């Protein structure tokens, strides 16, 4: 990465990886590698990089791992981090997104990490206020830090990204993870396949380097990586598939089905999982699974994002 020095994310909001170059993604992954060492070194994890910076986590949707992960990432870097949940704030009093953002801005915040049900909410925020906006998920649109941690996990385990066959399985239609993965993974030279029942695949989805499959068995032939997406139970009530039993049988990822993939296939899942539905327990806890590692990598990647955008990555 000889040209990495020229790349900077300083002052940049992270709304969608569509707007990221391969060099910028490399920069995040390389920085995350250093951050991961710090998390793992034990003892004092605290860095001074973001001392004096204030970060607000503004979460309009429930989240355990993403919110905690961003919160710890900020704290490990020495920033002051405050988390706001929609249920316990002025949002329940009917305050508009614009006004909530402006209120937070007025308190002197440097970055806002935002999770919202509405597609485009993070982009809207960048137009409304000056602090750096980190999109922690906007509807079914984008979840850039998740895609970056997916890439980071794959790179750590496989030693490379280029040329790998990755299959994303499940509810592609409603998935911000899938949409961010598609942009990130194709930029990094991976062959991306999307698979699931046609009811959960977006109609008219056209993307260079991406293939859609209605058969999971067909899609995972020789796969190097399988990213299993969460199936929300309300999709069944909406008539998108008939039963969890049938879904598990036809589309679920289990050891038997994995015989079709490469021997050393890597299994990812953004969580939270529905064990026995989209993924079996043996797969989750098996040695090909990197699901637990993804969580730790999530903190490292988010430290990298915060450090690079707020601090330019110096001292890291």
């Amino acid at each position: 990465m000889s040209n990495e020095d020229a790349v900077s994310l300083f002052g940049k909001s992270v709304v969608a990886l569509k707007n990221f170059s391969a060099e910028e993604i490399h920069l995040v992954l390389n920085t995350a590698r250093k951050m991961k060492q710090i998390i793992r070194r034990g003892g004092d994890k605290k860095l001074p990089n973001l001392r004096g910076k204030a970060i607000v986590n503004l979460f309009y949707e429930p989240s355990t791992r993403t919110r905690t992960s961003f919160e710890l990432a900020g704290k490990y870097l020495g920033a002051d981090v405050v988390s706001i949940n929609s249920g316990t704030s002025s949002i329940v009093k009917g305050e508009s997104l614009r006004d909530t953002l402006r209120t937070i801005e007025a308190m002197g915040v440097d970055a806002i990490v935002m999770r919202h049900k509405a597609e485009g909410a993070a982009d809207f925020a960048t137009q409304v206020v000056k602090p750096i906006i980190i999109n922690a998920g906007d509807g079914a649109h984008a979840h850039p830090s998740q895609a970056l941690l997916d890439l980071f996990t794959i790179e750590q385990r496989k030693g490379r990204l280029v040329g790998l066959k990755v299959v994303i399985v499940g509810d592609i239609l409603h998935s911000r993870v899938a949409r961010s993965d598609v942009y990130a993974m194709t930029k990094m030279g991976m062959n991306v396949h999307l698979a699931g029942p046609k009811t959960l695949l977006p109609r008219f989805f056209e993307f260079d380097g991406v293939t859609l499959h209605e058969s999971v068995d067909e899609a995972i032939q020789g796969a190097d990586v399988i990213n299993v997406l969460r199936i929300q139970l309300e999709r069944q009530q909406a008539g998108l598939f008939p039963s969890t039993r049938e879904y598990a049988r036809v589309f679920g990822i289990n050891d038997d089905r994995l015989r079709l993939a490469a021997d050393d296939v890597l299994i990812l899942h953004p969580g939270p999982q529905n064990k026995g539905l989209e993924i079996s327990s043996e797969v989750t806890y098996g040695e090909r699974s990197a699901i637990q590692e993804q969580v730790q990598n999530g903190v490292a990647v988010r430290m990298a994002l915060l450090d690079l955008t707020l601090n330019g990555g110096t001292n890291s």
Partner: protein
Amino acid sequence: MNQTWQIRRMESNISTSLLIRGGRVIDPANDFDGVADVLVIDGRIAAVKPDIKFSTDYEYDATGKLVTPGLIDMHVHLREPGQEAKEDFLSGSKAAAAGGFTTIATMPNTSPAVDNAALVRAMVKRAEEVGIVNVKIIGAVTKGRHGQELAEMRDMIAAGAVAFSDDGNFDDNAKIFLNALDYLHNTDKVIICHEEETTLVEGGVMNEGKRSALLGLKGRPTVAEDIAVARDCLLAEYSGGRVHIAHISSARAVDIVREAKRRGVKVTAEVTPQHLTMTEDEVNPADASTKINPPLRTQADCDACLTGLIDGTIDAIVTDHSPHAPEEKDREYIYAPSGFPGLETCIGVLFTELYHKGKIDLRTLISKMTAEPANIFKLDGGNLSIDAPADITIIDPELVWTVDAKKFYTKGSHSPFIGRQFKGRAVATIVHGNLMKLNQW
């Protein structure tokens, strides 16, 4: 360049005369297109011919401009009663005058819905009291627009309703809709149909297509419109009733209407400037101004709508002027209400994107906003015949201007056309002989 409209109510019972000199008069209803003077006396057209010698109270030099029958927009939302933060009869009819419209018809999806004679009568009275232009009232087809029981449409006709519509909703219940067609059969009133099959568009905020697939926004597929248009064409054919397809937007739906017309079905259709000229590619989820129902489609759909407009499948152009309060539109795409104000930008869009690009001739364009809507809704107007009401629009086809929301007369603030530069604008609007004009310094 400062551009300000002089908009004022007509002083009634004052005898006035007006001579419009030297414009290119386009009057499709009378098959007239040529340079002529137009003489107006006491709110009626007195003469249309070259070089009129007559001493009048007022004169307007229309040299280099187009003089057309007053434009008619049979699909606007003036939001009264109940939603006056979005628009009211005064602000909405000022916007109409500034956009060159002399007659508009307002939809009944208000709060409460205009679904009975008392409300129609009240709205007719409001229109007379504050309306700057002619404001016609459209009544609801079903009580509360719920699609369950027929509203008292014959009482509403007696009170002055010009048409019926549950616009905003598709009437899912085919039997109720068939009943409505039968019930109105021996009247001259048409039902204006919002055509999107409900279950297929539930939760949808933009066209279902390549862009929604990438953005993750829920789609409203064209097939929802096609199914609805097909059903209503078939029910019109079966019942012998009259159906008017509101804001058509899908290429396939245009085909279905064309085919139905060929069979002699009593169906007419309208299209908006936005569905003729804008596509799903312009949807930005961080800005709700492009959120409309039916949604912006693809270029192929725009092209099909234009073809349909020119070949007569589509009879009228309407704005579907749908203003909302700024705070309602200034929010997340999925939560913002659908619609944007269109009265003040309509001529600019149509002249810039269609006429100046050679895609449509002036006679067809003007006809779709005058003679044809007047014919569908049986209005006294849409032409410059002698003794017709002196509703006249004067358009400067070459005037270059920039859309500025601060200068809108509508209360609606969010339009995807804000900041756009247009060529072509109404410069004078005459309602019953009352001249309102755009001054330029």
